[in-house]
């Protein structure tokens, strides 16, 4: 039955092209007369360019053009699109091509265009650049101190912004505290590692002044807008297409200099120009994530009641502010610091700091994993101090069930939740008490098992545009959908968001099928082309279903209303007497007198017999601006075993319980959880972007940067509860980032739980065997 399509784990519509090699990603495209660009990138983290000579490169075989940074002057500076209010934000000039000073390894100083990619690479080596090295600083705490090497002339102490969040009486909280636990946490810098490297293909049509840019972007409409600003091509003549996009995880949100330089070259040369980054370039110059140093104090009573949390965070921003970067360690982080708990008072200071490193951006979870980690680490630390069970401490402090709004100390109003129910379900599933007993028994035998919990609530469904404006986001955050019926009752859906692996071609078809009774196979979803789809703000922050899905529901309902009017007319009944069910519009009480949606679609198109004042055709559009964010949540549990001889951590079991509201397609939801969890596990155990004191990225390839591998992971158990959002038409909340937000803390807490009996009090991520081993040695006085 058509209506049961909602909630059904059907196979994805996207997959046939992806499993046969028929899908077209940006780098798969070729155009006649196309040439290839290669970016010349700085090998220095901080240096003055004293000379650049492109003459040898220009003579190399196949070379079409070489432009030094200063010659890429037709491009405006890179815009920063999240201008934090009340933060003294200093947006340093971010040129597309550096012409005087380079500020990170990977900063672009020129571009070579050649007939083949090999020739372009060869010629890069022939560009002669003289650099005068300048002092380098790579960590945000050092960079923020007086006397540190200064990156930008007008930014003292490299402080891009100082932002604060607070609520409640924090001084009273600490005055009344019966104990205070403190911790310093390094949320190490991570490299997103979408499997598809970034790429751009620009085609300039000189005669009409039109430009098409194919790009690996998560948000083609924002990119069109920014591309128009930077390149000067007017928006109506600019078409941005996100073809198949191979993952993003935040790293394909930003606009990048390389994309605009590709456009610049295409215009200059009047030939299509393609640029595809290598993985090495991706590591050097595609945005990174996290990079926080956090100092935290939690005030509590001896019975475990938490009273207040005070924190200072230094957030490394990289050498320049990427498109949305200022909002990540602030709005998306600080506002979520109270997590799922009744926290009466909070104060956080965030220093966003320029360093000689790759710019950071949103990375899966974007600020929320860093917030969740803080509170979840502190809860475990408090539990250890009080010798309380960590689950009991959490349950004691959790916000009780609420269905329609709960205000927290940061000023946000969570939409709905039953946090204790989720945690209790998780604990029951794993038989928590038995698990603890198993752990105790194992310890007697010299085996060190650890059990780690993390609960979380995240902010998704970004978000009300009025709020976006108030928090300095230079855009709206609504989404759009057009639902267009064709004469035979087949449906085309056009959405402004731009999925890149999440499966909305399937789940959005399920929404339409479920709303209006067409077969799911009769709905085709279009996205990712600014000439074809309505404006939308893109796919990130777990917002596509939460906001775009709502737009689609309302657009479909508009179609349904019109269909009802047509049905009433055809059936010679009053509109009020028409009721909809299972794809049919019938006269109340006479189910035989009915029209199917397909019959109505045909009549709406031939228009032989339309009701008075009703236009032909059957389509509707909706621009939906949500009244609030959505707040998915959950509780995760990890079980690890630590080899005390080697420090090796074995992740033995992982159980995720998430509540994202009703699930359109539970198989896809599970897939999102699996992938998210493993990305967070990667931060806990393996991943770290390491710079040396000269600002060289030591983890500059997949050889050195340890990504999660199949053989290092267990199967993941996925549970759920369903608490609808009161303000989404279907109650949907979002699931894309949930796994990542919880899993880093869950695994960290598990590893520390395993080695705590040896006296280990803290660990540094990633918890590599060496680090765990050293921590154990130190705790045992064998350092």
């Amino acid at each position: 039955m058509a209506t049961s399509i909602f909630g059904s784990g059907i196979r994805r519509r996207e997959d046939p092209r992806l499993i046969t090699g028929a899908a077209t990603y940006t780098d798969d495209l070729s155009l006649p007369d196309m040439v290839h660009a290669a970016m010349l990138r700085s090998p220095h983290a901080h240096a003055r360019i004293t000379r650049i000579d492109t003459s040898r490169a220009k003579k190399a075989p196949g070379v079409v053009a070489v432009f030094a940074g200063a010659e890429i002057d037709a491009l405006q500076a890179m815009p920063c699109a999240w201008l934090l209010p009340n933060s003294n934000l200093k947006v340093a000039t971010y040129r597309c091509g550096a012409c005087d000073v380079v500020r990170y390894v990977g900063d672009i100083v020129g571009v070579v265009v050649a007939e083949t990619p090999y020739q372009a690479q060869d010629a890069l080596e022939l560009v002669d650049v003289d650099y005068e090295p300048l002092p380098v600083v790579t960590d945000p705490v050092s960079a923020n101190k007086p006397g540190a090497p200064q990156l930008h002339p007008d930014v003292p102490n490299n402080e891009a912004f100082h932002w604060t969040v607070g609520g409640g009486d924090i001084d009273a909280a600490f005055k009344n505290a019966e104990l205070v636990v403190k911790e310093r946490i390094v949320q190490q810098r991570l490299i997103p590692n979408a499997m598809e490297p970034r790429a751009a293909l620009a085609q300039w049509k000189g005669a009409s002044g039109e430009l098409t840019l194919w790009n690996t972007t998560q948000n083609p409409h924002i990119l069109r807008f920014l591309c128009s600003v930077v390149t000067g091509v007017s928006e109506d003549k600019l078409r941005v297409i996100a073809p198949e996009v191979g993952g993003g995880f935040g790293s394909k949100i930003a606009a990048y200099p390389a994309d605009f330089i590709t456009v610049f070259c295409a215009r200059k040369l009047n030939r299509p120009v393609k640029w595809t980054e290598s993985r090495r370039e991706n590591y050097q110059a595609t945005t990174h994530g996290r990079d926080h140093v956090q100092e935290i104090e939690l005030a509590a009573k001896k019975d475990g009641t938490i009273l207040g949390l005070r924190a200072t965070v230094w957030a490394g921003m990289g050498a320049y502010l990427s498109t949305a970067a200022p909002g990540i360690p602030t709005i998306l982080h600080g506002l979520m610091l109270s997590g799922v708990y009744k926290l009466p008072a909070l104060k956080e200071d965030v220093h966003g700091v320029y360093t000689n490193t790759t710019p950071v951006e949103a990375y899966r979870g974007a600020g929320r994993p860093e917030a969740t980690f803080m509170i979840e680490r502190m809860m475990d630390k408090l539990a250890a101090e009080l010798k309380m069970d960590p689950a009991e401490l959490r349950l004691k402090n959790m916000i009780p069930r609420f269905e329609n709004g709960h205000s927290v100390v940061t000023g946000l109003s969570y939409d709905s939740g039953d946090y204790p129910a989720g945690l209790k379900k998780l604990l029951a599933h794993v038989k928590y008490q038995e698990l603890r007993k198993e752990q105790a028994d194992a310890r007697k035998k010299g085996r060190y098992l650890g059990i780690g919990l993390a609960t979380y609530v995240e902010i998704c469904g970004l978000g009300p545009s009025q709020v976006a404006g108030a928090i300095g986001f230079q855009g709206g955050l609504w989404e759009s959908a057009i639902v267009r019926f064709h004469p035979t009752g087949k449906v085309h859906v056009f959405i402004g968001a731009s999925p890149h692996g999440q499966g909305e071609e399937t789940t959005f078809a399920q929404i339409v099928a479920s709303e209006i009774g067409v077969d799911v196979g009769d709905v085709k979803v279009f996205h990712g082309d600014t000439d074809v789809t309505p404006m939308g703000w893109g796919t990130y922050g777990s917002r596509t279903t939460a906001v775009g899905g709502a737009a689609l529901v309302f657009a479909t309902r508009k179609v349904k209303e019109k269909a009802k009017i047509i049905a009433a007319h055809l059936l010679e009944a009053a509109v009020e007497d028409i009721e909809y069910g299972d794809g049919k519009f019938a006269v109340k009480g006479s189910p035989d007198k009915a029209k199917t949606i397909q019959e109505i679609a045909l009549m709406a198109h031939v228009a032989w017999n339309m009701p008075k004042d009703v236009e032909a055709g059957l389509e509707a559009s909706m621009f939906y601006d949500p009244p609030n964010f959505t707040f998915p949540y959950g509780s995760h549990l990890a079980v690890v075993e630590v080899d005390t001889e080697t420090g090796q951590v074995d992740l033995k079991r992982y159980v995720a319980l998430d509540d994202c509201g009703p699930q359109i397609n539970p198989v896809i939801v599970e897939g999102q959880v699996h992938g998210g969890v493993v990305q967070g596990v990667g931060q806990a155990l393996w991943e770290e972007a390491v710079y040396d004191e000269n600002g060289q990225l030591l983890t500059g390839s997949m050889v050195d940067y340890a990504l999660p591998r199949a053989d290092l992971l267990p199967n993941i158990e996925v549970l759920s509860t369903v608490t609808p959002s009161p303000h989404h038409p279907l109650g949907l909340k979002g699931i894309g980032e949930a796994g990542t937000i919880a899993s880093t803390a869950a695994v960290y807490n598990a590893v520390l739980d395993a080695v705590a009996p040896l006296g280990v009090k803290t660990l540094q991520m990633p918890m590599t065997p060496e680090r765990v081993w050293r921590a154990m040695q130190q705790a045992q006085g064998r350092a």
Partner: protein
Amino acid sequence: MKVPVTVTVNGRRYARDVEPRLLLVHFIRDLGGITGTKIGCDTSQCGACTVLLDGVAVRSCTCLAVQADGSAVTTIEGLAENGKLHPLQEAFWNKHGLQCGFCTPGMILAAHELLRTKPKPTDEEIRAGLEGNMCRCTGYHNIVRSVREAAGAMAGR
């Protein structure tokens, strides 16, 4: 300097003059439309470029086109026969073994190699067999399920 090579790709013979340094993956992707084979890294770590060279899985980014001279290559485009998906392709579809799809061609061909050498692998053996293929979307969970299902389907053939 260019040298002549002849490589059969998915049953069709291609004779080209190539630079000796040309990587097999670029050779294939530049033939015109056979772009299912992906390039995910420069260091033979990610496995996205995996193809079958005379039936054996290799990384086409670590193999020169001249080394493939006279050989037969199967890419993801050549796996389905007579319009019928290979059991691995079916299984990846059935078990949601892919999300963004970029690692998928290499993952499926690496799994093909695994099942060629070990037709009835345990989950642990599947994980060990695919440890050289990176996926950032799935957390590998559903890839393991997919390969398990394909092994079952192929055993029944």
